[in-house]
């Protein structure tokens, strides 16, 4: 089974990396990008998805500063 975990900086937390990318887009002439936030994509191959929330809570994300979303790809 293939799973993807999307880890994002929580709303309201300053993301200087996203802000730098936004400024760079603006300098390249891409108008109208009002915000860029950069997180992390974690891809897992695993046999049982039941423990994924615990994996996220304990290790893959820090729930104080990050939101996470688990996406299961059942076709693979």
């Amino acid at each position: 089974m293939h799973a993807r975990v999307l880890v994002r900086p929580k709303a309201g937390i300053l993301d200087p990396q996203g802000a730098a990318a936004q400024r760079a887009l603006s300098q390249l002439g891409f108008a109208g990008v009002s915000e860029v936030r950069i997180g992390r994509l974690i891809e897992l191959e695993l046999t049982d998805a039941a423990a994924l929330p615990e994996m996220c809570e304990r290790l893959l994300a820090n729930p104080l500063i990050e939101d996470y979303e688990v996406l299961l790809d059942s076709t693979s």
Partner: protein
Amino acid sequence: MKFGVIVFPGSCDDVDAQLACARVADVTPLWHADHDLQGVDAVVIPGGFSYGDYLRAGAIARFAPIMTEVIDFAAAGGHVMGICNGFQVCCEAGLLPGALLTNESLRFVCRQVSLDVVNAETAFTRALEPGRQLSIPVKHTTGRYYAPDAELDRLEAAGQVVLRYAPGHNPNGSLRDIAGVINEAGNVFGLMPHPEHAVEALTGSVDGLGLFASLRDSLTGVVV
């Protein structure tokens, strides 16, 4: 009186931390893979890049074998000082509130900063005069202290904000200029600046010694 300094793969300030501890007490290194604190009276978690700081700073080290003992030691009232990466490890382990994020500048900063001693009544600052300013270096990329607003209010009201960057000295965008915090019970202290690099006049400052001396005095019951 014996201090223990944890050595993780990737620690780089463990030797300086041992030298600083040796100014005030006996000291022994504690290997990350052991389940043994060797009877030490206090634990120092030093700076560096434990386990490469992969994923998030301190996120892997927090599950090192020795950390099981450190967490039990702290729960039983044992004194723990986390410096820089050690502060990150303590936050990841839930021993301290908050988290350390990438510097607002996105840059590694390495400079001497001035710190205001906000709370001089803790086990780690009791040898310092209240209102004293310390000159201690920082060197990190992931030092921006963060906690939710309500938690910051609570920490300030409870005296858990121990050190602040002096006005104009915040090197990383830490909320409310916070440089060091203590847990509610008062036995776990974390700070981003490096007091172990400020114990010798030859390198610019001896202001870090007061933190190690405070800890020794607390453990020996010296009345200030």
